[in-house]
């Protein structure tokens, strides 16, 4: 029997969802199998026999959001780096994985940390062994830890200290969040990296979060699920659950007054920049405002979107503009980031943006605008599902953020139900001056 790629089924599901296709929807959903080991480790598998590779991802349910202890900002990201420094069994992670021709890397965000290995399917057995070993047996000694802080500080210099966009992003979150841990940058504050983080902080963080009941393993590509699960059981089965109580993360109180901060950048070459944001709901497909804002971002910022049309094409005031609402565990921000053309006025750009936001509060969006937005949201995911690594990523992303990997197709389905009236209401709820945070940056004169 000819095998039908899972990805094609997903396309059919999302683009031609109808009674005729319901059987295919079920097939697609059954294609992803969720298993929970007795120690709490979640395993998601998605087989695709049409490819020669596998993608193996480990999601640790801890990001910078979980750095609640003062002085430990950046610790989740430090762990990401430490995970590549070898174990007793595999002293060099690179030497162990290089012969596989594997793509290996990781990323840390506010809400989780993710590690991946993409390789030819024949190496899967070894990969399971290496990945299990490093997450279970990762050593955490002071000298290695301090050495790894070197590149982390250079990473910070590269993307925040010498980069005006990164700098502005960091200043923005610090101003917008007063209590919640989204306040601090993922990479951490310099003083914490330099002197405040102690070895014991790292050990505590590891014991609390690098535990099976805080992790999900996601595998997509060419493998047999029963065989794989036996391997997972073999290598992860003895991993002990963490018994720490959950972190207490203070919710961000309602913002009562607009917050504004203006900066002068350290060189003359930078063009003026601005970031505007409004506190908004967390990722939740049952929250009408959240889903409506996802579509509103397309109405405003697609190439034919309202703000793009005016700022980029008609008035030519900006180099680029982009915005929207993120996918977060806790309430996030609807943000608008803009880089102006040299010599253009921040006030003029701000005026245009505010005018367009007001319009969304006062008028319904057009049917065609909504259609574009829904199509774009669907295609945005679907175009990326052309390889096992993308599929594994999205499944793990939603499993870790909301505990439901099915968000991958539930969200696009939900967007179909959003009406112009719901978008208008979301705009009215969110785009309120007292809920606004603005940071600007101008070049040194």
């Amino acid at each position, binding site marked *: 029997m000819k095998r039908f*790629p899972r990805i*094609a089924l997903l*396309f059919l599901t999302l683009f031609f969802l109808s009674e005729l296709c319901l059987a295919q929807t079920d097939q697609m959903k059954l294609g992803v199998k969720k298993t929970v080991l007795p120690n709490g480790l979640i395993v998601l598998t998605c087989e695709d026999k*049409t490819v*020669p*590779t596998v993608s193996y991802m480990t999601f640790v349910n801890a990001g910078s959001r979980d750095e609640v202890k003062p002085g430990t900002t950046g610790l989740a990201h430090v762990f990401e780096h430490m995970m590549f420094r070898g174990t007793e069994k595999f002293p*060099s*992670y*690179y*030497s162990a994985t*290089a*012969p*596989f*021709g*594997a*793509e*290996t*890397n990781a990323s840390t965000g506010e809400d989780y940390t993710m590690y991946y290995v*993409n*390789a*030819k399917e*024949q*190496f899967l057995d070894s990969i399971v062994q290496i990945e299990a070993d490093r997450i279970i047996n990762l050593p955490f000694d002071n*000298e*290695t830890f*301090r*050495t*790894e*802080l*070197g*590149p*982390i500080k*250079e*990473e910070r*210099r*590269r993307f925040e*200290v*010498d*980069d005006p966009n990164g700098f502005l992003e960091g200043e923005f979150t610090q101003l917008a969040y007063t209590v919640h841990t989204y306040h601090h940058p993922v990479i951490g504050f310099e003083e914490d990296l*330099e002197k405040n983080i102690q070895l014991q902080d790292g050990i505590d963080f590891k014991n609390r979060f690098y535990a099976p009941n805080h992790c999900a393993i996601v595998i997509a590509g060419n493998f047999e699920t029963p065989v794989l699960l036996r391997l997972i059981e073999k290598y992860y089965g003895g991993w002990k659950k963490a018994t720490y109580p959950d972190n207490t993360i203070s919710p961000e109180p309602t913002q009562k007054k607009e917050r504004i901060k203006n900066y002068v950048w*350290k*060189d003359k*070459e930078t*063009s003026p920049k601005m970031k505007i944001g409004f506190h908004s709901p967390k990722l939740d497909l049952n929250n009408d405002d959240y889903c409506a804002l996802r579509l509103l971002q397309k109405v405003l910022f*697609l190439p*034919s979107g309202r703000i793009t049309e005016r700022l980029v*094409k008609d008035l*030519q005031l900006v*180099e680029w503009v982009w915005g929207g609402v993120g996918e977060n565990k806790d309430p996030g921000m609807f943000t608008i980031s803009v880089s102006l*053309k*040299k010599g253009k006025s921040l006030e003029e750009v701000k005026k245009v943006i505010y005018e367009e936001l007001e319009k969304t509060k006062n008028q319904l969006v057009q049917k065609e605008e909504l259609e*574009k937005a829904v*199509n*774009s949201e*669907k295609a945005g995911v679907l*175009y990326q*599902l*052309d*390889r096992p690594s993308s599929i594994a990523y999205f499944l793990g992303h939603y499993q870790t953020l909301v505990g439901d990997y099915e968000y991958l197709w539930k969200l696009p389905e939900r967007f179909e139900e959003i009406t112009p009236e719901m978008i208008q209401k979301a705009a009215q709820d969110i785009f309120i001056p007292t809920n606004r945070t603005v940071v600007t940056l101008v070049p*040194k004169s």
Partner: protein
Amino acid sequence: MKKIFIVFVSFLLLLGFSCAKQEGLKLIEVKKPTIPVVYFACMIKSGSAYDPAGKEGLSYFTAELLRRGTKSFTREQIDDTLDLISGDINIRTSREVIVITGRTLKSNLEKFYPIFSEIILAPSFPPEEVEKLKTDQKSAIDGLIQDDAELVKEGFMEYIFQGHPYGHSPLGRYSTIEKFNQEDVKDFYAKHFLKNNIILGLGGDIDNNLVAKVKKDFSVLKVGEVPQLNGTITPVQGRKVFLIEKEGRDQVQLRFGFPYELKRQDKEYFPILVADTYFGKHREMFGVLFRIVRAARGLSYGAYSYFEEFEQYGWSNLALPNNPLLHQYFSCWTYPKKVNAKFTIKLVLKLLTDLVNDGIPENGLKQAKEYEENHFPFEIETPDRLLGMKMDEEFYGTKTFLKDFGTNVEKVTKGELDAALKKFISTDNIAIIGVVSNGEQFKAELLSKRTVIEYPTGAAGASLQKEDSEIMGFDLKLKSEDFKIVRAGEMFK
């Protein structure tokens, strides 16, 4: 290992691709219908190296104008339609080529294809957009200057290819952009958008009807005399330093390297490819540079080498396809903090010198070859990548590059690799480019006898001190006249 490779060759062949020529038109087809998406690509073999003298930036300007209006569609209609059907069209200009890529859901092909084809076959170059684009292109230069990593790469390219048509950015100069007019664009289009100067690509869920239609539609392009590239590349003589000044840098972006005439057809191509994988494969952690500069000493977040032109493909460690260069270069890239910049320069030069002098260790050769052979599936993992790689084969005239990749890697011997390094790589003739706060001050530091290293607090540096004292003694052999310093803002005037 051979068995593994045969499996991949078979996998490639199953995908089915071919190259058809019709009165000079080259069309690459990659049928890979795993998802109902159609991919288009068009490579015009006339990038910024073909800009007329005094009109630097014209190829980029022409390319960008393509999607700002055609015979049947205005810019607004193009954006509206593409947004409605969630189709993409992207245009990129490099030194050798203009590349127009597109993708659409197959169900939207009828709306997408007329736009994609008209952009190439019937652009209207609206006068109002000519004026608007001048502002946008100058703004794109501003954007390049703001990104230190981009700036050091561009500074490196302009420095090592100075005097050659590769010696200016595809974005051109502020002063030349200002003078462009619609006639310049029409003239460039007429001279370069020729049937015999284009490689077309179709990939993904394509069928014979689409292929036939594309062949027929693009046959309206004229056949003409393909402009030839003139100019001589001057090798770097000795060690040279080009410093680009931007205030307030806490970190120094560094690029080292030189132009060389390494061709895909050369017997040394695969030995150098394997050597580069061993020494500094992009975003891989097993490379010598990464292990010694970053992992052991914590000097930089990244330390990599490149044996040919490289732009990162998305978030991966892969090279962007459809980005060919006929004249290549070797380079290393790293970015330490200011105080460690001089030491890092010495360290990288010493590591490269050691590699050339001592050759590759057997275990390093084995590991690098295994990596490349097993990594190959990712090079052709998606329809757009495979299409781009096949088009690059056509561009370079190496029709079996992908098919023979594994065999050619496997065949590399230590003797061949070590000889290739000695033939192509020299740290005695190398350009060092840096983005620094104060050029004169940095020059004085490089010319001084003092070299320092500052390890991260509490790091493993103590155990390396003996080794690092030796590196500090590495003679940069620089003289005052080897330096050139320019303000970032002046580079593109």
